[in-house]
């Protein structure tokens, strides 16, 4: 288990409990002290819950990017049955940063599109760290159109630092591919449900998250730019990532509050990486329930609901949130400063003239 920098106490407690569970090697005792182990375990649980209940945006960023955090591949294997992988955009190539295919979710046929970061060096390279190229988005468009034809709902797993930035991706139309993918999401008359399982990175994420329901795992993040990118541009200092993460309000809790996402899926104690199977069960339950909520809805209703949702985001905020009082206060203070400045200059000039007169005569 890889511990994050704010989990030092947990690491210590975990190693303590390992010692208790392994008495033969350490103390020569011949039997387990179950009472002691239980006590230690409940202490760990308490501490874990404490830490994970108060994660800020930057800590959540670290959890969301944890190398052992379950990825799309794991969820696809553990949530769906009879997964039928499909490859290629029929234009240029196959993008392995996105796993795509048809499957059964309980008895319901679905199309699954999962951004995959990989879980070790080899698979990370193969998956391009979850950064999709234009071909990936075009593969998704091709398959979403098939899903529309077969009247099959679409489920997407979002986990990407962003769309791949590079010469090849640029000249093959990364921007066009993303725009068309969003357009396609908005044109599918079947329900689309997205789950942000780790990192929802900007345009690369929204391309497949323009959905009827956007669900987020409890410790996932979703933002317009990475905290590092934001810090280096707006603070001109990449080390200000913590401040950027906080300011951008990228947590599932922030986004639910802003009505940008629709639901938070609870993670197991201490994050999905501490109990991937349980995380998969939670996601599955939520997907099944959300899909049920669309039964009986017409194609038009599904299309309209999705559009109306995106059209209304950000429009219900009061005009100039928190601005006016603050702004007026600032305005007056500056005005009075300017007035004072002028007064100081006049006063200074008078004194100067007076001094010169006194010196001359």
């Amino acid at each position, binding site marked *: 288990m890889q511990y994050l920098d704010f989990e030092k106490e947990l690491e210590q407690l975990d190693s303590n409990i390992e010692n208790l569970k392994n008495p033969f090697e350490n103390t020569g005792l011949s039997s387990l002290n179950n009472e002691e182990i239980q006590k230690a375990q409940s202490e760990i649980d308490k501490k874990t819950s404490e830490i994970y209940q108060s994660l800020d945006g930057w800590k959540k960023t670290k959890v969301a990017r944890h190398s052992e955090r379950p990825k799309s591949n794991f969820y696809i294997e553990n949530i769906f049955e009879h997964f039928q992988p499909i490859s290629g955009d029929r234009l240029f190539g196959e993008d392995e940063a996105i796993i795509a295919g048809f499957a059964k979710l309980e008895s319901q046929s679905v199309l699954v599109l999962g951004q995959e970061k990989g879980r070790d060096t080899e698979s990370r390279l193969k998956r391009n760290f979850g950064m999709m190229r234009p071909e990936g988005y075009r593969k998704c468009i091709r398959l979403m159109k098939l899903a529309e034809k077969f009247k099959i709902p679409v489920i997407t797993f979002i986990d990407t630092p962003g769309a791949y930035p590079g010469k090849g991706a640029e000249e093959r139309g990364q921007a*066009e591919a993303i725009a068309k993918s969003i357009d396609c999401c908005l044109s599918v008359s079947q329900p689309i449900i997205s789950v942000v399982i780790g990192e929802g990175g900007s345009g690369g994420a929204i391309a497949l998250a323009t959905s009827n329901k956007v669900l987020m795992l409890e410790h996932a993040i979703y*933002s317009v730019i990475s905290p590092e990118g934001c810090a280096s541009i707006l603070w001109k200092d990449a080390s200000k990532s913590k401040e950027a993460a906080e300011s951008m309000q990228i947590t599932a809790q922030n986004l639910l509050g802003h009505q940008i996402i629709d639901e938070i899926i609870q993670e197991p104690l201490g994050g999905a990486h501490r109990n991937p199977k349980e995380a998969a069960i939670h996601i599955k339950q939520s997907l099944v329930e959300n899909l049920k909520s669309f039964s009986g809805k017409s194609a038009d209703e599904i299309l309209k609901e999705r559009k109306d949702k995106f059209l209304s985001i950000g429009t219900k905020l009061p005009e100039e*949130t928190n601005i006016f009082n603050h702004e007026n206060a600032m305005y007056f203070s500056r005005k009075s400063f300017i007035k004072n400045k002028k007064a100081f200059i006049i006063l200074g000039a008078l004194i100067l003239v007076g001094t010169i007169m006194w010196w001359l005569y």
Partner: protein
Amino acid sequence: MNWIKDLTKKLKPKLENLFNKKSTLPDNLWTNCASCSNIIYREDIENNLYCCTNCQEPQQILPRKRFEILFDEGTYEELETPRLSSDPLNWSDISSYKDKVKKARKKFNQRHAALLAVGSINKMQAVVYCMNQKFLGGSVGIEEGEAFVFACKYAVEHNLPFIAFPQTGGQKMQHSAFALMQMPKSIIGLQMLEEKGLPAIIMATSPVAGGVTASWFYGPSVFVFAESENTKIMFAGPGVIKRTIGEDLPSGFQTAGYLLKKGFVDRIIHRKNHREELSNLLSILLNLEIKKAEDTTDAAEQNTVSPQQIISA
């Protein structure tokens, strides 16, 4: 001549500070062509549709200037866009965002980075959405996104074609996820035009980057033009690419000329030909009689119906 430019450059801010005066940018005598780096007399380029008198490169202009040279006789109606939050997250980095918004509003006399106008181009009425990159980078936040959808809705309601002049660094970081959500939102706007069979034209003006390129720029059924071969059009900028994967881009990359060859730009239409070419294309698409630029007065006499009526018919 360089020393004059240097001198005025150095002195100007000092003098301005001294007299506590607002920036009087348009009144500068000299300007520097971004393309051929020649120093040109401002009055000369003003008489040349704000294009360099030496290399003809279109210079960056503010939306109201754009409207003046685009619409017949420079007349148009500016549309007021919905007033929404300009700072939803109460943003502050090394300075407060509210202050920046306030300053930009005062400086440019516009509420956000986009201005909206309706007017005639060779008698062809159109709704025009025009961005100002100097307004906080022309970044797209809640209000710019809402204005885009508002423009599309207005075009649909009045049965008018839509033209947009993007000029932006992309989505507004200070609006975070709210800015990201403007991407699907603007595409919904274009879908409304598509459903109504109304043309949408994007005329790129340097630079266009980020989320705008990856949303409405390549939105459904849009025509993508640029006013110069040198117009910068990109998704990820050279800085982002360098920072993320350490790749250097060749020169001339991410320009409209290059993208034209790669199949991602329809055509380069120089600013001098905007009025004629845009109105011609719109007339063809809408199956209307093509009006020549020269005989606007004649056409007015010959036609008893107004362009508005022709389009609605």
